[in-house]
């Protein structure tokens, strides 16, 4: 067999691997000389490059390694998103890690490794390569979740995530084996050739169902969401933000690519599964968020609910649902990391913010943080003129035009419910007297991050057309 080595198509992965190794070496050296580790800055450079590559080469597409790697617009869009997410996490992480006395270089090293896995995941249809990439991402995130390893809840978070993630990977792999048994291929595009034309075999359907279950674990969709609140609560807040945005985006992108490429149009069983899971996820995610007093749990359930909304787009792929999902992922990344960043910024030394009581009246001490929180939470709830409004609008519009009226109605109704619990947070921030008036320590990097995120949430909310066009463009070849 011909060796089809094409360095261009794995350019983002090469950059990330290079920075991953460089960070390892630099961290080891700076530790032996006793100086503060600068791997965070290296991470910033690496992620900026990751985000810059798609901007530079946008539209130049190629495949390599015998069709195993596809460097198309879809992969480029996601690489850009991952670069942005990485930068934002690096901006907000040092403050939190410093607060809890765990400012270690490994956090950024693992973050780079995780982004490497994610960037491979979105650029392949080969299920074997996909699974290895998924494992790279997951292993790194398990450790990030348990980063405060002296804190019981952080260990619990890592442990639950690890066990559940291991089960999910096993289920996924079993599904791949069944698909292989039925089609003789592990590449989604070849599976499509086998599936098209003839009746879909039960073994392929069974396999795809298990593959879907594996994905549902990763995107935290009901009924595979049990680990989410505990893991999100116990993990360090920057790691939680990364799990809620980065991991979810990568899993969603992988799910989109593999599902659309391998089975289009969906067989009835797959459609029924997606319908049910979307229904349950929107319902349970939103209603469970209402009763949470722990803000990280609240955001965990809210992230479950958002996964439900995005599943709508996956169902309505014929009517532009997928590009709506891409746009939603972008918007959601800014707003959700933003909300976590405000929690980090309000934290005190050794006393990170977690409970809703801790943010009582904070808006009067930190008016800018309060304003930022309004922007982010309104965007998550979908209130105009924030970007979240257009994200939801595009999703629901595509769902309605694809005929999923009831799901869209449920989506709109649960969005109203979500407004309640997001507003409750704001009520605590604005309507109460602060319990102590000592302001939190200021951090430049978190401030920059918050400014960037607030700007983009508002910017995407005022001129969404340009970005939705890019999202549509990114998916033209795929659908």
């Amino acid at each position, binding site marked *: 067999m011909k060796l089809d080595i094409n360095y261009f198509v794995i350019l983002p992965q090469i950059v990330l691997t290079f920075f991953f190794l460089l960070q390892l070496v630099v961290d080891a050296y700076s530790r032996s000389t006793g100086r503060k580790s600068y791997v965070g800055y290296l991470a910033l450079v690496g992620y900026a490059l990751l985000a810059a590559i798609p901007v530079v080469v946008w539209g130049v597409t190629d495949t390599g*390694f*015998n069709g*195993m790697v596809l460097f198309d617009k879809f992969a480029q869009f996601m690489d850009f998103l991952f670069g942005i997410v990485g930068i934002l996490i690096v901006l907000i992480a040092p403050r939190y890690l410093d607060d809890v006395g765990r400012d270690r270089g490994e956090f950024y090293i693992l973050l780079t490794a995780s982004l490497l896995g994610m960037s491979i995941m979105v650029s392949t249809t080969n299920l074997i390569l996909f699974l290895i990439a998924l494992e790279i991402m997951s292993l790194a995130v398990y*450790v990030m979740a348990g980063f405060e390893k002296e804190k019981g809840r952080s260990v619990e978070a890592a442990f639950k995530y690890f066990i559940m993630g291991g089960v999910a990977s096993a289920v996924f792999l079993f599904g791949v084996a069944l698909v292989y048994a*039925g089609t*003789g291929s592990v590449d989604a595009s070849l599976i499509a050739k086998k599936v098209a034309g003839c009746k879909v075999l*039960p*073994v392929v359907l069974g396999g795809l169902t298990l593959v879907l279950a594996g994905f549902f674990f990763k995107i935290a969709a009901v009924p595979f969401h049990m680990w989410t609140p505990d893991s999100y609560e116990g993990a360090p807040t920057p790691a939680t933000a990364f799990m809620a945005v980065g991991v979810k985006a990568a899993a969603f992108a992988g799910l989109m690519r593999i599902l659309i490429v391998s089975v289009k149009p969906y067989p009835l069983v797959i459609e029924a599964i997606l319908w049910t899971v979307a229904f349950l996820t929107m319902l349970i995610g939103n209603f469970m968020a209402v009763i949470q007093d722990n803000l990280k749990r609240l955001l965990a359930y809210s992230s479950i609910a958002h996964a439900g909304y995005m599943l709508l787009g996956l169902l309505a792929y014929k009517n532009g649902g997928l590009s709506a999902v891409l746009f939603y992922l972008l918007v959601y990344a800014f707003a959700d990391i933003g909300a976590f960043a405000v929690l980090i910024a309000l934290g005190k030394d050794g006393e990170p913010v977690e409970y809703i009581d801790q943010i009582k009246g904070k808006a009067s001490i930190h008016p800018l943080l309060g304003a930022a929180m309004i922007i982010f939470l309104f965007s998550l709830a979908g209130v105009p003129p924030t970007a979240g409004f257009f994200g939801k609008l595009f999703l629901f519009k595509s769902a309605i035009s694809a005929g999923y009226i009831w799901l869209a109605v449920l989506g709109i109704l649960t969005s109203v419910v979500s407004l309640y619990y997001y507003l409750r947070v704001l009520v605590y921030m604005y309507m109460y007297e602060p319990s102590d008036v000592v302001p939190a320590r200021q951090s430049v990097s978190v401030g920059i991050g918050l400014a960037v995120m607030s700007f983009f949430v508002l910017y995407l909310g005022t001129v969404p057309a340009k970005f939705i066009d890019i999202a549509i463009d990114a998916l033209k070849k795929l659908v």
Partner: protein
Amino acid sequence: MNGFWVNFFFILLSLTAILSALYVVLTNNLVRAAFALFFTLFSVAGLYAILSADFIAVVQVMIYVGGILVLIIFGILLTRTVFDMSLYDKKMSKFWAGVIVVIMALIFLKVIFGTDWLVRSGTTIQPVTARLGNIFLSRYLLPFEVASVLLLVAIVGALFIARREVKKR
């Protein structure tokens, strides 16, 4: 080997694998579970051998039986607190677990009996090791290389978790 003996060993090994795996999950004693796992892993290696996947069979014995299982047993022996404990989670509902198991079993029965399985025609069986090596360095070169990154990430993560923290200040 003729058809009878293939079937005989297949049934024997499958039964051993299933029964010992059941014992692993149902027993309340961690040490016994670890030792029962030995039979599961070994008979799975036998199944690979029957399928003429000689390399996989050897790797299964070397890594799972020889490596991972030994590590598990060492882990149990070195951790006194897990020696005598109930392995059952009281909060887990047996009823719902049963429901899920029945649903999964129905799905698998449907898969097993509803599929026209691709049966390999009687080609001569050849050793696969050399072919695997070729494929790893040609068609699956990228996954092969990426897997080494995966191992590196695993090492970094494991070292971070296992390392003793030196208290500053």
